[in-house]
């Protein structure tokens, strides 16, 4: 580890799939810029430092930390706290850290249900109904595994976050642009965006980048993509009845999926300033349903067989329903 006076950079993965790391690696030669301008202080995938080394660093000694992955277990949370302490700028990097991503769908189930499913699956031979234990006494000694949290949390649900960089994974060209920006800031040629901002993405939605032709929208039916005989390569997918989330999903990816005739599934999260992503889709889809008859509307809505998955696919753990706090319930009784 060199101590060459360059600002320190860290990247960490909590409960993630590794796709964010791959996306960073895919920025190509820009990686060399990172290397030239930063001292890599902690990057498990690329570097040889341990938690203990990070613990030993002075607080705020890391300039920039990209944190990917959700907070699924105790270990994830401990490292989030550690890196928050040591970092000046903590970026929630990728959908998992920003809003929970697909693993956040686990929040629909109780942990016990998850264990029951996984450890009693059709191919599992488990006559004694064994399940993993956080602490287990082997003949040779006790071994432990980290505690599985009741819900998956986003990074900002456990520590304050300075910036959000959405995407599953963030697109490499966006990462490269952010790297460029940070390097410019270091050189005094640019300033950082305001704290709490979303970086590496647009402020509109995927439709803004989508090349498909679009018209005034009315929906008579929703269809499943496999039931479409021939997907029109040029027409808005939603107008073909395919529930595309591009309407409400922040732009930045370049509308990759709709361009490939696949519906946007929403990995870049909500547009700037939106409080609840799912609500935006609910209201947009529903508003243009072409019927005033409750029965017919319900029939059309049957075309979206899994509304929670459709509207909160990437967003469940980060949605405001996740961040509930008890209300003042002093109705009728003076208390507060």
């Amino acid at each position, binding site marked *: 580890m060199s101590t060459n006076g360059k600002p320190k950079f860290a990247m960490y993965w909590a409960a993630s799939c590794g796709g964010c790391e791959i996306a960073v690696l895919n920025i190509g030669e820009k990686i060399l810029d990172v290397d030239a301008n930063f001292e890599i202080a902690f990057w498990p995938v690329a570097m040889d430092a341990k938690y203990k080394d990070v613990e030993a660093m002075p607080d705020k000694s890391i300039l920039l930390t990209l944190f990917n992955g959700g907070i699924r277990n105790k270990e994830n949370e401990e490292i989030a706290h550690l890196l928050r302490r040591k970092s000046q700028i903590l970026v929630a990097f990728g959908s998992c850290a920003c809003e929970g991503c697909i693993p956040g769908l686990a929040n629909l189930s109780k942990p016990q249900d998850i264990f029951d499913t996984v450890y009693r699956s059709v191919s599992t031979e488990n006559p004694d109904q064994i399940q993993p234990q956080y602490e287990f006494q082997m003949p040779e000694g006790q071994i432990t595994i980290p505690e599985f949290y009741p819900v998956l949390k986003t990074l*900002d649900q456990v520590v*304050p*976050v*300075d910036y959000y960089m959405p995407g599953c994974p963030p697109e490499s060209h966006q990462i490269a642009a952010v790297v460029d920006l940070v390097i410019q800031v270091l050189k005094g040629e640019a300033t950082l965006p305001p*704290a*709490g901002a979303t970086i590496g993405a647009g*402020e*509109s*939605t*995927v*439709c*803004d980048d989508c090349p498909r032709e*679009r*018209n*005034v*929208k*009315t929906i008579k039916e929703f269809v499943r993509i496999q039931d479409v005989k021939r997907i029109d390569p040029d027409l808005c997918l939603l107008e073909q009845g395919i529930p595309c989330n*591009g*309407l*409400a999903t922040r*732009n930045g990816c370049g509308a990759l999926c709709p361009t490939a005739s696949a519906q946007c599934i929403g990995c870049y999260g*909500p*547009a*700037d*300033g*939106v*409080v609840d992503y799912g609500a*935006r*889709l609910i*209201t*947009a889809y529903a*508003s*243009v349903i072409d019927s005033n008859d409750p029965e017919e509307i319900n029939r059309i809505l049957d075309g979206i067989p899994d509304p929670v998955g459709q509207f909160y696919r990437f967003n469940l753990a980060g949605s405001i329903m996740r961040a509930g*706090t008890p*209300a*003042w319930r*002093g*109705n*009728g*009784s*003076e208390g*507060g």
Partner: protein
Amino acid sequence: MSEKVGVYVCHCGTNIAGTVDVENVSQWAAEHLEHRGVVIGRDYKFMCSSLGQELIQNDINELGLTRVVVAACSPHLHEQTFRTACARAGLNPYLCELVSIREQVSWVHTDKSAATAKAKAVISGGVERVRMDEPLQPLLVPIHPATMVVGGGIAGIQAALEIADSGRQVYLVEREPSIGGHMAQFDKTFPTLDCSACILTPKMVSVGSHPNITMLTWSEVENVDGYVGNFTVTVRQKARYVNTDSCTGCGICWEKCPKKILDDVYEAGFGQRKAIYTPFPQAVPKYPVIDVENCIYFIKGKCKACQIFCPTEPNSIDFEQQDELFDVQVGNIILATGYDLFDSSRIPQYGYGKHANVFSSLEFERMCNASGPTNGDILLRDKKTIPESVGIVHCVGSRDKNYNEYCSTICCMQSLKFAHLVMERTGAEVYNFYIDMRTAFKDYEEFYQRVLEEGGHFIRGKVAEITDAARTPEEEGKLIIQAEDTLIGKQRRIPVDMVILSAAIEPRYDAQEVAKQFGIACSANNWFIERHPKLDPVSTMTEGIFIAGCVQGPKDIPASVVQGAAAAARVLARIQQGEISLEPVRASVNEDKCSGCRICNNLCPFNAIIFHEDRMVTEVNPALCQGCGTCVAACPAGAISGTGYSNEQIFAQIDGLLMLNLEQPLEVVVG
């Protein structure tokens, strides 16, 4: 900048203070919401009194309040009062919130502590909301001085004349060949028994000759663009095939026309007209039209009798004439498109269309009319026999769950008029079958007494059936009206020669389309909805669009005339002002955030949403926008915001109502 909020809690005498501990509430607000910017909490006996208002004004001046919350009655009552008070003190009126703790708290709850607690929550919601309020300015829109009146019945005629007489330009659009409407079909009008034509014709003539009225008969509105003060209306003037420049209305053409057609409109299917015709002799304008669907020339390519006999030079018949489309600029529009008569054949047990001597009310009107098919003689369908007994059935298609639940208003008086005419002209026995006798308004009850004195029979009960199946010899050859006489509690069968059905008044068959075209609302039974049923009966929710006459609901001639005049007065006041100030509750699009997805494009019934194909963004026209907020709520990108009811305001109010603000620091750190 941190806001300074003043909270004012009204006692409303004991109306509020009787159930809500108002002193406690105002103190609580000052103490517990201090960290949310509340600098003063006061309670006062009557906040709406001038002293109460001064209290607020003084605090604005002395404490430098930047926001005001008044907890009192409904905003529908006094929102304007307190806004104006704030404005007087130099505070933008839209930075004042009136929250209701009377209609929604003290008057509906009994438990004092629960009501007090709820009042706190309501005020807390108001405080949070007001913090998010933005200063707004009313929108000012100039008013084009011309007006369009759609519909040339008595309501439209009255409105057109009122406006034209004051020196303003009017375009009167009528889809029939002549103005006059239903009133032109009647013989007499109740209760005075004036001759309908005698009182209507002079008005029609005034319209036809008025220098400020452009009469567009045989015309329909094709499209409406624009907004209050500045509408562009596209009118289609249908081809008459008659050159109105040269035609003198001499009538030779319709005399010579060989084709006779049953007249469903003016003669209500009771009489006939020619293929080239004016609907009635006093028609304004006097020019005929050719009915191309029935004209022999248009069907077979030969005849041209009208052209051959036309005496004018140049010949006034022009078979090549085309429909004309033209645009008209107007500032306001009055809709007076009238009503349709209920089709009595929809009630099969009344035998209309099956039994020859069952007549609809309009057929009977034509029969009574001296210029009608029988020259005013009351005769059976054979046009020879004078009836000896006549039944008049009220409420046909009205006050009936199967057809129309409403009362058509005019049928009672109309039926009494028929009874009088029958007795006067034939001496026949007359039986009225009624549910309730409704004779409100001036001289109506007196007319009822007169008909009673004249010997009319009145049977209170709904008619079950009208049949020709005789049960007794004296019923042979008669129409038997079966009804329960609820006054004596017996079924009765009354044999008569003739039955008149006082049919309901219904909205025009195309009312929904017309409403949509003009961007106004229809009620569930398709009457156009007024802005307020009591206080604003001739305005609509759409600025610049007014309604008059039966289009708003069933009414008689005097009421229609009143509405026509009222609508005209409203329009004239607008024109006089020169501009109109609109509530600044409006939607607007942030073009940077708009992705051009076009979700919102179909959501606005006022056509305020415009899509710019070139830039692929949507825009909201603030003058057309009515501020409902539907597009704001629909935008998937959150690119549309709405003043007055912004997301921030609503979110804040939710937090406040749930008392989440109690623990919330004023400066919220993001992230």
